[in-house]
């Protein structure tokens, strides 16, 4: 591919923005356009994904002073679509349908609708109706159910999950944009209140209000931009159909198929990655997808973190910004922001030295995908 991330933008992340998702999306988009040294009129495509609150691409374009888009798409779906949206934007550009596309996500994920909770009266139609009697209807329950199975099959432990949470918090401490910056020990983790065993509060993402925008363009524009392009090397998706109860093996997620496909397509190996932004709606998502993408043997993710292999000086820096767990849950699009920042060498005190290749994953359970980005032109 010869499409790159040419601009990145975001709002501050807060617990109560007091703003509309549209206003935040416009701010993040303006920031991404300015970062690239372009003008709003250069943007001819806008896409987003949503399962809770969001705003339509046409509304955001209007706020940017753009009255016409060649491509405006809002897909119903979660974090599993993030890598796909950027890769699809690249494909649209390569097909000649657009020249510069903004992928954005804007939500009041904390002060507005929170994905982990529901209030009555609740009527449940469609695929989740069978889970209504047990009130098994939200992601912190689904992922905990899968994590328990992993513990049964591989002997992984709550302390293994805790290693992920503790390391990511350590990464977030110097990150001024992160929501959760107080250092955390394993004792702190284990003292966290139970949500759904085997998950404690620190196994769950930090819900926030905010927006991120990623501006993608072809080589013709990329070479003229203010920032060094961050090239998209490859992408793979595996969107499964069996849902949270019928998936054959909850110890493995979508990554078991997306991983091999990604390495085959790019000719790269897990060991080539300098950093990996692993989608971390929950700690267990990091565990299962690191195994699926081949960063670690099944059942060994806890020791991998405990031995310092997931941080600076180790094998690969996992979530140098603190991830969704500690930086905040902009539905995974902030992972792509971080990867671009790192590959541009602009991550400040948390810069991964000589960062050239980044794996960025999106989604969990049966559904997800991943992109690989490169500092060097492919």
């Amino acid at each position, binding site marked *: 591919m010869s499409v790159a991330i040419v601009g990145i933008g975001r709002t501050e992340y807060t617990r109560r923005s007091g703003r509309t998702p549209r206003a935040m999306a416009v701010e993040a988009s303006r920031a991404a356009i300015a970062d690239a040294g372009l003008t709003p009129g250069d943007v001819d495509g806008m896409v987003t994904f949503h399962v809770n609150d969001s705003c339509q691409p046409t509304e955001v374009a209007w706020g940017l002073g753009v009255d016409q888009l060649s491509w405006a798409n809002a897909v119903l779906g979660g974090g599993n679509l993030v890598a796909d949206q950027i890769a699809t934007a690249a494909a649209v550009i390569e097909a000649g349908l657009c020249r510069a596309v903004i992928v954005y996500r804007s939500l009041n994920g904390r002060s507005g609708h929170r994905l*982990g*909770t*529901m*209030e*009555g*009266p*609740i*009527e*449940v*139609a*469609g*695929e989740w*109706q*069978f*889970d*209504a*009697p*047990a*009130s*098994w*209807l*939200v992601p*912190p*329950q689904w992922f*905990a*159910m*899968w994590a*328990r*199975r992993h513990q*049964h099959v591989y002997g992984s432990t709550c302390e293994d999950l805790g290693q992920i949470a503790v390391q990511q918090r350590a990464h977030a401490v110097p990150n001024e944009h992160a929501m959760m910056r107080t250092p955390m020990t394993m004792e702190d983790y284990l003292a966290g*209140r*139970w*949500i*759904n*065993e*085997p*998950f404690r509060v620190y196994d769950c993402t930090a819900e926030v209000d905010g927006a991120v925008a990623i501006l993608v363009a072809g080589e013709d524009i990329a070479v003229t931009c203010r920032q060094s392009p961050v090239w998209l090397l490859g992408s793979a998706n595996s969107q499964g159909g069996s*849902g949270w*109860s*019928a998936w*054959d093996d*909850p110890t493995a997620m979508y990554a078991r198929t997306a991983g091999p496909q990604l390495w085959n397509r790019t000719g790269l190996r897990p060991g080539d990655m300098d950093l990996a932004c692993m989608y971390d709606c929950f700690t267990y998502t990091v565990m299962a997808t690191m195994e699926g993408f081949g960063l670690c043997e099944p059942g060994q993710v806890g020791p991998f973190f405990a031995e310092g292999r997931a941080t600076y000086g180790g094998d690969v820096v996992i979530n140098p910004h603190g991830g969704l767990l500690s930086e905040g849950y902009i539905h995974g699009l902030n992972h792509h922001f971080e990867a671009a920042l790192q590959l541009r060498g602009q991550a400040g005190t948390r810069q991964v030295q000589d960062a050239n290749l980044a794996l960025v994953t999106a989604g969990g359970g049966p559904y997800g995908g991943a992109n690989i980005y490169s500092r060097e032109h492919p």
Partner: protein
Amino acid sequence: MTTTSDPGAVTRAPVPVPDADSAGFWESTRDGVLSIDRCTQCRRWQHPPLEACRHCGQPTRFEPVSGRGEVFSFIVVRQPTVPGHEPPYVVGLVELAEQSGIRLTGVVRAPVDAVHIGMPVEVRLMPVGGGEFRGPEFVPVSR
């Protein structure tokens, strides 16, 4: 039935909305029988139900099952984020004896520390929401 200090909690519990594919499941539970969708040709069970078999495309119908199974995985809900039950309680993902991979979720009526993966259980159909339908719960049984 769950006991609760909040009398409204049970009525605010999530209520399933049947559709043309699932109506047979819910009508059967209302009659006190757990039935699962099954292919009339290849005889495989499937859940969630669909009017045609996902494997061979032939028509399906609901057939009664034993209601026996094993806990495939479980969680202990300690913080109530969805109304319906009084924490702490166990939600089990139960694999039915009829076929590998056919699983139902349900509250497991057992002490939270007693539940384990592989535990044999049996279904109990309990009123849900306003009581028009019944939904599965599970109780431990000896093998």
